[in-house]
């Protein structure tokens, strides 16, 4: 199930307006809170992982961060 184009446009615009009203400084944290809330609501790990992959797609890795062994 995906969002209709109209809903997508409406919610996209609403988010932009409402984040702008909170001030530029707050925007990264608001987006991070939104991501966490959506993670909680979507409850499908594979879908979330695919979404993360898509979001990262245009950003090449600039440094390797070592994971715990």
């Amino acid at each position, binding site marked *: 199930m995906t969002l209709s184009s109209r809903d997508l446009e409406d919610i996209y615009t609403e988010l932009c307006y409402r984040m702008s009203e909170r001030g530029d400084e707050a925007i*990264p*944290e608001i987006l*991070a*809170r939104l*991501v*966490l*809330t959506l993670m*909680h609501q979507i409850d499908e790990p594979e879908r979330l992982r695919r979404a993360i992959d898509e979001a990262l797609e245009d950003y090449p890795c600039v440094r390797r*961060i*070592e*994971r*715990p*062994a």
Partner: protein
Amino acid sequence: MSVEFVSYFDYVQYPPVLPELEHGLDINQHPVCIVGGGPIGFALALGLARYGIKSVILESDSSVCVGSRAGCVTSRTLEIFEQLSVAAPVMRQGLPWSEGWSYFRDAQILKLEIPQDPLAAYPRLVNIQQCYVEQYLLDAISKYPDLIEVRWQSSVVGMKSTEDMVELDVQTPVGSYQVRSDWVVAADGAHSIVRKSIGARFVGTRYDGSYVIVDIKMASRLKEGRRAWFDPPSNPGATLLMHKHRDDLWRFDYQLREDEDPEEAVRPDNVLARVRGHLEFIGETADWKPVWISMYKASCLTLEQYRHGRVLLAGDAAHLVPIFGVRGMNSGIDDTHNLAWKLAFVIKGLARPKLLDSYSDERVFATRENMRHASKSAEFMAPPTKAFALMRQAALGLAVKHSWVSSLVDPRQSTAVGFPHSPLNVYSQESEFARGPAPGENLPDLVLPGNRHLSSALGPHFTAIVFDDPSAMTHALPSVDAPTRLLSIANSDQTSHRFDAKPGTTYLVRPDGHLLARWRRYKPSDIATAINTCCNGGLA
């Protein structure tokens, strides 16, 4: 500014002693030399002594450690300590706790309730300063004067290992000497000289964040438990933990911000100002005095092998896990319990040296499991990158109003690790069991008649637990060299629930309390095969 520190523990200073030497060489070649006289070295020596194996402990310091350090023991450690006759004093001095409170600034975001097992012999978590743990282990060691020798102020400065033995170079204030040993166990901590000598390298992650640890003496009325603050006014932009111990001792762990100079920050007047600021913030008015200050950096590091020929590594010498979740000393004690019986059986000719490879396989697996949990806690407590910091800030902000975020804030306290992939596990009738511990897992506890616990009925031998089969006791024990005992337990709701026990169900338990195999019917030949396979180091 001069700061007055107080003490609550009488430290005995032990003199260096030279063994009898011939041309600078200890006249005795020892079965086991343990490098490092801390909790891990002491626990291993006691573990070996239960099997009649002699050991020499070489410790560079002159007394037990100073400071609270590894300040919390788990129920698993207490079960092991019971086997070493150390649990009773630890429980007398220790402070059990089962609650925690996490705060974002001044808002509570998590009330932690650590579930207790009603059938377990010990509480899940008990706070106790490490100096007491070391002292009680040392007291127990003094009961084995013929089996355990502790050589204080004896620093190992070099090591040479061959196929047949290991030679150690030892320096003391009264002279240097060499000592030969059939086996060497490195329990000499994070900066292990043994690890360096064999050229073994840690793999994993070192986190950048630094923590200051402060012990203070303060007669506070605050309840015992874990208190964690994120971004409190007393330590803005960072975290702070507070824990109560007996002796009116309070332990603070606080994170330094990236912009702080660690050397400047650890100066006593700066440290104490921050403690004072935090006590004011929480409204604590009791008088207090500092006891001890130290510094800490979180790491998730392990060797890929804990056995290198005749050299075995345990505790911080083999792995370093972040302090969050109390997996440091506790996992080291688990190492010793896994290693003691295997090394003893090999020395006594009851098992092939290959059995020692399973020590490495199992405990490396345990370390990786511990790291999986501890790294998540460490990354939340001290975010290593901007991305971690941003997401944590978002999580903490949401946690004030939304309880679903609490799993991210949860400190993930240590639990016993099983070995589902151990080469020693014997699988034969697993499909017939709906529940209960599978091979490799730790045995859950039970209350037995006479108010004894199952965990305390296990001993330095294999134990075949036969449920509800009165005739079992008349069966012959299997014909194996390794010490084996039969334990008959009447069935009950407890045994049915925890072990899926039916009349004749048999669980075969290793000397370290991990399950080796289980069957629906008691058959001495099955037990003998499983024990022999185990002592051979598992299936080829």
